[in-house]
C-alpha cells in the first residue's frame, strides 16, 4: 500500500445518520470475487432509479461533486454488515477519507486497513462541514488534523498502529507474520480438545 500523509480535497456531503453498509453497497453486488470495480455500484439504490438512470437529486450525480475525495457523512456511518466491499466501493469511486461524528466499529477497521481515512470530528465542526458542501479541507494524518478553509484546525483521534501503518505504507499482515514464535508459544498452552 502507498503511504498516506495528506488528503486535500473538496467535500461531498451526505448528511443522513446511520448510513448502513447495505446502502453503501447493496448485497446483490457482493457476488464478486475481486475487490475492484465496485465504485460504479457505490450507493447504487440512492444513485440510480429502477431503470439504472442516475437520479439527478442524488449528490454524487451532481456535476460539482465530481472528483471530490472527502465524504462528509452523518453520525454512525457504516453500521450494519461487516462487508469490506463498503470501503472498497468508496475507494474505487475515488474517496480517500470520510468525516463523521462516529463510525461503526467494523467499518472503521475495514476502512483503515484499506487506506480510507475515518476522521471523527466534534459536533460543531461537523455542523460547519454539513452546512457548506464543497469546501476545501486538508486532512493531515501525521498531525492528525483537519483544516477548514478559514484556517481553523481540529485534531482527530486515530489508532496509533493504524496511523503508523498508513503513514509508512506498511501491511498489518507482515506484522502478524513476524509474531510467529509468540503465536506458536501461545498454541502450546491451549487445551487439547
Amino acid at each position: 500500500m502507498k503511504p498516506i500523509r495528506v488528503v486535500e480535497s473538496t467535500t461531498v456531503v451526505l448528511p443522513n445518520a446511520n448510513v448502513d453498509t447495505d446502502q453503501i453497497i447493496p448485497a446483490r453486488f457482493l457476488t464478486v470475487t475481486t475487490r475492484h470495480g465496485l465504485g460504479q455500484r457505490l450507493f447504487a439504490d440512492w444513485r440510480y432509479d429502477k431503470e439504472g438512470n442516475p437520479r439527478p437529486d442524488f449528490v454524487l450525480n451532481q456535476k460539482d461533486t465530481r472528483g471530490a475525495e472527502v465524504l462528509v457523512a452523518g453520525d454512525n456511518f457504516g453500521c450494519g454488515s461487516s462487508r469490506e466491499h463498503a470501503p472498497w466501493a468508496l475507494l474505487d469511486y475515488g474517496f480517500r477519507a470520510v468525516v463523521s461524528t462516529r463510525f461503526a466499529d467494523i467499518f472503521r477497521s475495514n476502512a483503515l486497513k484499506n487506506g480510507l481515512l475515518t476522521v471523527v470530528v466534534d459536533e460543531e465542526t461537523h455542523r460547519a462541514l454539513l452546512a457548506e458542501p464543497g469546501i476545501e479541507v486538508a486532512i493531515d494524518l501525521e498531525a492528525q488534523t483537519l483544516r477548514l478553509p478559514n484556517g481553523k484546525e481540529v485534531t482527530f483521534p486515530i489508532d496509533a498502529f493504524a496511523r503508523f501503518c498508513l503513514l509508512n505504507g506498511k501491511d498489518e499482515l507482515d506484522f502478524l507474520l513476524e509474531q510467529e514464535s509468540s503465536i506458536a508459544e501461545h498454541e502450546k498452552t491451549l487445551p487439547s480438545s
Partner: protein
Amino acid sequence: MLSAASTGKGDEKPSKAKATGSRTLFEKVWNAHLVRPENQDTPALLYVDVHLVHEVTSPQAFDVLRQRDLRVRRPERTVATMDHSTPTSPPGADGRIVFLDRQAESQVRQLERNCQEFGIRLYPLGSDRQGIVHVIGPELGLTQPGMTIVCGDSHTSTHGAFGALAFGIGTTEVGHVLASQCLLQRKPQTFAIRLNGTLPVGVTAKDLILAVIAKIGVHGGTGHVLEYRGSCVRSLSMEERMTVCNMSIEAGARAGMMAPDDVTFEYLAARPLAPQGPAWDEALARWRRLPSDSESLYDREVSLEVSTLEPMITYGTNPGMAIPIGSPLPDTEREPAMEKALQYMGLKPGQPLLGHPVDVVFIGSCTNARISDLRLAANVFKGRKVASGVRVLVVSGSQQVKKQAETEGLDRIFREAGAEWREPGCSMCIAMNGDRLEPGQYAVSTSNRNFEGRQGSGGRTFLASPLTAAATAVTGRITDAREILGRS
C-alpha cells in the same frame, strides 16, 4: 498480566476489575487469548480458536494467501459453508442446482476450490450439515464456551450465547486469521445489559432483543462488548439466547455474550464436535469458571424489566426503530431521519401498525430459523391458511433444522397452510440469491435488518418474531399473535 493488559489509552481510568483482581466473562476470555497484550503503539494480538468462512467475504482473502505464497496456518480450526447466495429451491430432477446467475455460482465454486486447495473442511450444498454459518456452528458443537470465534460476517455475535467471544471481521482480517490464526484488536469496553423478570406468554426472545436495541439505540453498543445478565437470561433456552446475542451488532456492539450454565452444557453434550469423555469433564471444569466474578465490573450498564414487555415490531429503516406492536408510530416532527424512514416505508406519524397489510412473510435467517422458531410459527399455522395474496417463505437455518422439522411434521403444516417450504440458507434475509421483495412490497420478516432495500430494492421490512410473522401470514395484516392464540 494485570498491567500488561491495560489499554494504554491515556483517557481511561483503570477498571475496577484491575483493582480487585475480579474479572468479567469477557475479560476472562480476552485474557486467555492474548498472545501479546496491547500497548500505546500496538493493538493486542488475539488468538482465534474457531474461524468460520462463507462464500461472500472470503475469496479476496484466499487470493492474498496465494499472492503471498502463504498457507492456512491452522486449517483444522477453520470451517466453511455456503449460505448467502445459495438457492433455496431444491435441485432439479437431474440433481443440478440452479443459481441466480453465473457470478453467484462462480463465487460458490471459488469457495469449493479454495477449501480444497487450503485443506479446509467445507459443508457444501448437498451436505446434511450445510446451513447458515451461525446456525451450523452451534449445531455441530463447534461453538463452545470461552472460545474466540470470528467470521467475515457481523452476526458472528450469535455464538456469544455460549459464553464465547465472537465477532464479525472484514475480509482483510479473514486473510489475517487464515494466515496467522490471530487478529490485531484493541480491547473493547464492557456493557452489562441486565434483563430481570420473566417474559410474558406470547413475548419471545426476538421481542426482547428488539426492545433492548430500541432502548440503547443502533449505536448504543459501539466500542463495547455487551454481556446479557439477569434472571431472564437464565430462563432462556440456548436457541432463545442465540436470537438475543445474534442482534447485538444491531446495537452497534462488537459482540454480545452470556455466561454459560447448565442449559449451555446440556445443549452441547454429545454434539459431534464437542469434547467427549475425559476432555468433556476437563472442559466443563474450565467453562464453570467463566462467569463474571462480580456484578460491579462493567464500564456501562443498563437494566430492563422484561415482565411488562409486549411483542415488538420495527416500523422504520434500522432495527432501533421498533415499538410495541399495539402502539401507534411515534411523532416525527423535526426529526429528519425519522421522517425519511417513514417516507421510505410509506407510513405516517402516529398511525397504528396493527392491521397494516403485507405482501410477504419471511420466516428464516440466523436470528429466527432454528427448530424452536419453526415450532412457534407452525403452532400458529396449524389448521389455518395463509391469507390470499400473501407469499410466505419458510426457510430453515440448516439442513439439520429442516430434517428435524420434517420429522416432526412441521413441513406439512406449513405446506398445507399454503406457505413455501424451502431449502436452508440466508434467503430473503439478504436477498442475494433471488429470494427478494419487489419494489414497494411490505414484508414481516423474522430476520435482523430492515435497512432500505435489504430484502430487495425498494422492499419494505417490518422485523418481528416468528409468532408475529405467522399470525400476520394468516390474516394478511400485521397481527398480534396473542389475538389468535390467546394470552395464557
